């Protein structure tokens, strides 16, 4: 398999509403930042791979037709991928395939969401299968509440408080991340007393609603070695989809997440994730999800995520920091969330994470999920091939 590396990354300043810019200007902001970070000009980019949430959020059909030309030189290949909330990380994975195929040398991957342009709730209701009616998860707490309740009921050693601890940890990390939207710490008491949304989920357990974009420049080995002293190499990848209607789907320990992780670990020759990874960026649209993902990704055994966070292991100075960026709880532009996890993970192994840098990070995992928690993808970056 041809080596592929991230040689530059960029993000917008994520905010609840970026009404100062149009959608193409917003994606351009992230794209320009990534290209500048990589030291390349738009004309050098061979292809653009973009992803976002469902088109209905921004109200433009085939939005790559409008947005591609805002970043790419006219006539270049532009493609958009969309797989629910994972859109952001399937974008990065698809961009990887573009370079790994041997056909393209430099590819820009970009994920975005501009919820303020539309009416998110109405968009959310459109996820119903018009024939059967199904709930849509990212942003809609119903399914996530069910997930959290199943998870907590199953494991005696995990409590609602552990969800609150995730919020406290991530919010603290967010104050160290200049791109984060939410940069104010909270106490456990504030989380536990916040307004209930979908039991056991409370207001402060929820990620905010955000406008934002993130981008990364992927390169073939040949170019990477010239462009960047410490690129982030893709060493592992996995993506797995699960049937929406399977009655045995276990949302408290999703099989598709477990499989995606296994694929990635196998590719990266990782046998003991908590010791061989230096950090993980996971998509926790709701606090409890971070606990679920820690288990499904093998960072601890099932039922042990409560103990894991209690021990401080997942704190930024712990043995397996989770979401040193502050995670989705500090910035949640849905269709970009997965890509932001990849950007953060890559930036960490490149040593460019600034105030939220995990010292000496060499191997980092990025995870995202989408749909009705049925699409999961995992990417592993390393500072060495």
């Amino acid at each position, binding site marked *: 398999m041809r080596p592929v590396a991230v040689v530059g990354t960029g993000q917008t300043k994520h905010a609840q509403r*970026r*009404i*100062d*810019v*149009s*959608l*193409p*200007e917003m994606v*351009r902001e992230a794209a*320009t930042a990534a290209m500048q970070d990589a030291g390349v*000009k*738009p*004309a050098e980019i061979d292809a653009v791979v973009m992803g976002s949430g469902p088109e*209905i959020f*921004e*109200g433009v059909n085939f939005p790559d037709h409008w947005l591609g*030309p*805002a*970043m*790419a*030189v*006219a006539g270049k290949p532009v493609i958009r991928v969309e797989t629910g909330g994972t859109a952001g990380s399937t974008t990065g994975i698809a961009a990887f395939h573009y370079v790994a195929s041997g056909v393209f040398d430099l590819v820009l991957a970009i994920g975005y969401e*501009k919820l*303020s*342009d*539309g*009416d998110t709730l*109405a*968009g959310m209701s*459109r996820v119903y299968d*018009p*024939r059967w009616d199904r709930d849509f998860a990212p942003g809609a707490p119903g399914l996530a509440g069910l997930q959290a309740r199943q998870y907590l009921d199953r494991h005696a050693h995990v409590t609602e408080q552990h969800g609150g601890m995730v919020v406290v940890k991530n919010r603290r990390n967010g104050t160290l991340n200049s791109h984060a939207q939410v940069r104010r710490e909270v106490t456990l008491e504030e989380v536990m007393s916040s307004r209930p949304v979908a039991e056991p989920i409370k207001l402060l357990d929820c990620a905010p609603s955000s406008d934002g974009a993130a981008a990364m420049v992927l390169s073939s080995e040949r170019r990477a070695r010239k462009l960047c002293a410490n690129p982030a190499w893709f060493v592992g990848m996995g993506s797995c989809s699960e049937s929406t209607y399977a009655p045995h789907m276990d949302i408290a320990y999703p099989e598709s997440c477990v499989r995606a992780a296994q694929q990635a670990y196998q590719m990266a020759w990782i046998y003991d994730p908590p010791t061989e990874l230096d950090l993980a960026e996971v998509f926790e649209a709701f606090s409890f999800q971070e606990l679920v993902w820690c288990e499904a990704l093998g960072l601890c055994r099932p039922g042990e995520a409560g103990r894991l966070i209690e021990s401080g292991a997942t704190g930024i100075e712990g043995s397996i920091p989770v979401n040193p960026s502050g995670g989705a709880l500090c910035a949640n532009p849905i269709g970009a969330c997965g890509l932001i996890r990849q950007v953060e993970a890559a930036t960490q192994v490149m040593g460019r994470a600034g105030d939220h840098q995990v010292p000496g990070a060499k191997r980092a995992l990025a995870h995202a999920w989408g749909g009705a928690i049925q699409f999961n993808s995992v990417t592993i970056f390393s500072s060495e091939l």
Partner: protein
Amino acid sequence: MSETREQRSNVRYRWATGETVGAFFSALRDSGRLLGSVCPECGVVACPPASYCERCGAGATELREVGPSGVVMTVARQCEGFTGAPLEAPFLYLLIKMAGADTTLLHVAKDDERVIPGTVVVPEYAADRSGTIMDIAYFRPEED
């Protein structure tokens, strides 16, 4: 027996324009002027304007007045009406090169045999202008 179940989509959108497009709409609404953007790298004057050049990818910040008249470059005649149409059918879609611009502006004109490629046209403004491209209700031949 297979049937259908209907649903109408009625989602409201409020797209942020950004400053450049916002400036264009303000100028149009407040003083009936048309602005174009100038690409600093390839020199192309684009009307309508954008803060970036679609051809070469450079950022564009300079705005310049264009028009008020323009030359019709292309015409297509819309025969049937539809909900939300800018004019009553039949009407004409036009691509107009405004004086001073290098790209063309998409707009409409009333059905008129005189409007063909080469015709000089000027904007007919809407009675109430609110800062949208339809502040120009349509274009008409200059001679009128």
